[in-house]
């Protein structure tokens, strides 16, 4: 029954599996972490090594480097060692419970020896906008015009095929012209003349008929019946004419609406074209945004992106799994263990920069099932050195159906020298100064709210400009205002949704810019807008007017024809009504047809 000679090879195979687990599992785990991390981050995640100790049930990850996707030669995060002590008993139930952990040597913004960029995905596989941590950070948004507006903005560069209003006019032209042609055909297609002629012939015959005696009364009753039938047909035709009139009137109104929409779109096109040349940002808020730089807004959005990413990992009410995967039926379990639970890990690290601050803190209750654990994920960090201090508290609460996150961050005494900001004709940076950063952010479901306060005093800003730019009046004024600032206070108010946050910027620079460059900017913007408007009008109005003339011309003609038809039908109906009345009298009284003849005389004249 048992093949004894196969037992030995079987045992050898089993032994090989054990040897692999002991000697190569470290490498396999390292490879798996690097691969999964890289996929998730969108840039390389490297590990120097993994040590798994079977005897102590511990895992140690060494030299973790997470590349900053926007700057592949920089690590967004670097950790020297991460040690985790696993509880043995839960492992026998497939549960990974980390009782204690240490995350040491955390640093941000460190230099990499080699690029951490990964192969660019094809256009088809690029995630939609806002679906990557640095999607906004890397997206090129129009900055301030770096040269003289007159030289930079040439209205002739606005092309008809780029304008939505032009495309709309061209698309609607064919549709409206076809509809207008149909109106005339509809009006012509209703045959009123035939029925009116039939009515006239009938009335003539009645006039010529003598309704006397019993035979006359019978004849009058028969003709009255025929008149009523004719009257019904005339009424039906009148209803058709009226319906066509109503329909054409409604369609004309709709077509006129199209013209109005084209006019609205023209305004949007002018705005879009001005924005394309960076002219729309010539407001004080636009200037402030340019000074701060889109990268900083991108960093806030990156933070929100990670909230979304973490939320996606949490168990949710999902659709039933595919049949091939089956369904897990859960039973009452005498331990309160989720599949994964990092109960507590101590954290220590240093901030980026030349004069770093050391900080310490703890990360608690990171779990695959927060509802079971009943506690939010919490990260608390505190640090300080001399007059400088750092505090971070992040609470990610997924214990309820509605996810909530709150982040409170304070960094005072920040050394700002060398901090790169945005671009105002040339790069803006902080020459020297000290500052405080306060971030209060909260989310509830999809809604985001919060403020980012940045206060630097004393501060000196630098704005590098080329000699050509210095010659331009407005750029020179902006440069002087910026470099003359002694204090910089910026408040970014966050709102909107996690997937599409909105930013409102208030700054101490606002008033300075308003008084210094407001008049210049307004004048130049107005001139550019007028030029753009004239160009858009020239490109679109001709096509739009074709639609308008088709509507007015064809609808007028069709409605005129229908009006004549309605009037002729109405007149015939009135005469038939009179005849019906006369014939009814004849039928009952057997009187001479003089009365009817009187009415018919009038008909004859018509």
């Amino acid at each position, binding site marked *: *029954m*048992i*093949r004894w000679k*196969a*037992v030995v*090879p*079987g045992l050898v195979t089993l032994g090989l599996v054990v040897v692999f687990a002991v000697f190569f599992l470290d490498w396999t785990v390292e490879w798996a972490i690097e691969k999964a991390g890289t996929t998730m981050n969108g840039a390389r995640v490297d590990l120097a090594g993994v040590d798994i100790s079977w005897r102590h049930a511990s895992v140690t990850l060494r030299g973790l480097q997470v590349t900053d996707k926007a700057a592949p030669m920089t690590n967004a995060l670097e950790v020297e060692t991460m040690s985790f002590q696993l509880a043995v*008993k839960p492992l*026998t*139930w*497939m549960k990974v419970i980390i009782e204690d952990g240490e995350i040491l040597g955390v640093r941000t913004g460190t230099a990499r020896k080699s690029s951490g960029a990964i192969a660019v995905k094809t256009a088809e596989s690029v995630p939609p906008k806002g679906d990557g941590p640095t999607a906004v950070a890397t997206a090129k948004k129009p900055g301030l015009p770096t040269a003289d507006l007159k030289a930079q903005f040439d209205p002739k560069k606005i092309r008809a095929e780029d304008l939505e209003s032009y495309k709309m006019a061209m698309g609607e032209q064919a549709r409206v012209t076809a509809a207008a042609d149909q109106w005339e055909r509809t009006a012509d297609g209703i045959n009123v003349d035939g029925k009116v002629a039939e009515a006239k012939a009938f009335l003539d015959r009645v006039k010529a008929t003598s309704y006397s005696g019993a035979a006359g009364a019978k004849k009058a009753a028969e003709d009255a019946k025929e008149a009523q039938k004719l009257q019904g047909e005339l009424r039906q035709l009148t209803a058709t004419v009226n319906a066509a009139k109503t329909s054409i009137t409604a369609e004309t109104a709709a077509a006129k609406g199209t013209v109005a929409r084209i006019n609205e779109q023209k305004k949007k096109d002018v705005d879009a074209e001005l924005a394309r040349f960076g002219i729309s940002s010539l407001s004080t808020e636009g200037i402030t945004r340019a000074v701060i730089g889109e990268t900083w807004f991108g960093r806030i959005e990156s933070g929100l992106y990670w909230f979304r990413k973490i939320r996606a990992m949490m168990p949710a009410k999902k659709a039933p799994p595919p*049949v*091939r*995967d*089956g*369904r*897990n*039926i*859960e*039973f*009452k*379990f*005498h331990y309160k263990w989720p599949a994964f639970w990092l109960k507590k890990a101590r954290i220590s690290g240093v901030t980026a920069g030349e004069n770093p601050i050391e900080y310490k803190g703890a990360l608690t209750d990171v779990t695959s099932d927060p509802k079971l654990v009943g506690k939010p994920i919490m990260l608390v960090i505190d640090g300080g050195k001399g007059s400088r201090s750092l505090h971070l508290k992040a609470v990610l609460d997924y214990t309820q159906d509605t996810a909530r996150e709150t982040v409170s961050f304070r960094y005072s005494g920040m050394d700002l020298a060398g901090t790169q900001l945005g671009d105002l004709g040339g790069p803006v940076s902080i020459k020297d100064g000290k500052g405080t950063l306060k971030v209060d952010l909260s989310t509830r479901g999809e809604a985001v709210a919060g403020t980012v306060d940045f206060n630097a005093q004393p501060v000196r800003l630098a704005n590098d400009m080329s000699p050509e730019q210095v010659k331009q009046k407005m750029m020179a004024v902006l440069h002087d205002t910026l470099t003359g600032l002694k204090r910089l206070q910026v408040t970014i108010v966050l709102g909107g949704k996690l997937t599409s946050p909105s930013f409102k910027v208030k700054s101490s620079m606002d008033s300075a810019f308003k008084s210094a460059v407001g008049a210049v900017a307004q004048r130049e913007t107005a001139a550019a807008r007028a030029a753009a408007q004239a160009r858009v009008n020239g490109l679109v109005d001709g096509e739009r007017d074709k639609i308008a003339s088709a509507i007015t011309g064809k609808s007028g003609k069709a409605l005129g024809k229908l009006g004549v038809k309605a009037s002729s039908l109405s007149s015939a109906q009135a005469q038939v009504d009179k005849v019906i009345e006369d014939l009814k009298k004849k039928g009952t009284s057997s009187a001479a047809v003089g009365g009817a003849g009187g009415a018919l005389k009038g008909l004859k004249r018509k």
Partner: protein
Amino acid sequence: MLALKFLIKFLGILNRDATPKAIAGGMALGFIIGMTPFTSLHNLIVLGLLIVLRVNFTSGMLAWGVFSGVGYLLDPLSNKIGYWLLTLPGLKATWTGMYNTPVIPWTKFNNTLTLGSLVLSVLLALPVYFILKWAVVQYRVKVMAVIMKWKIVHLIMGSRLFLTYQRFAG
């Protein structure tokens, strides 16, 4: 080439190299592996039995491949059986006990598909064994002689690969 080699080997086994019992036994075990999700822990035991027991290993591998497809088609039925068993009030205490016993959860017994397909395949394994044993006997008595006259079989058996295989197989 590999498939042809495998086919030649299986034809040899089917024709004379192994007993009907060994072929049917191997195929019945391969049937269980094929019908259930491969990554289940119980398949390690079944694979061990396939190696250790005096059954034909090649037949087992072939059955695994063939019945993986059949198992895929039977997934909806397996799922229903698994769900019915796991939600049966009379068995609740048993499942809860197993769920709370160390190591047992590694078998993923609480998965509807794993349990359903395992129960279904184990129940069918015995009939499959007897049907296949009878079929092999019938094949050798009635069909083999006819098949051996087919041109395609002659072509295969005359091929260099087959001759080389025969030489090495002894």
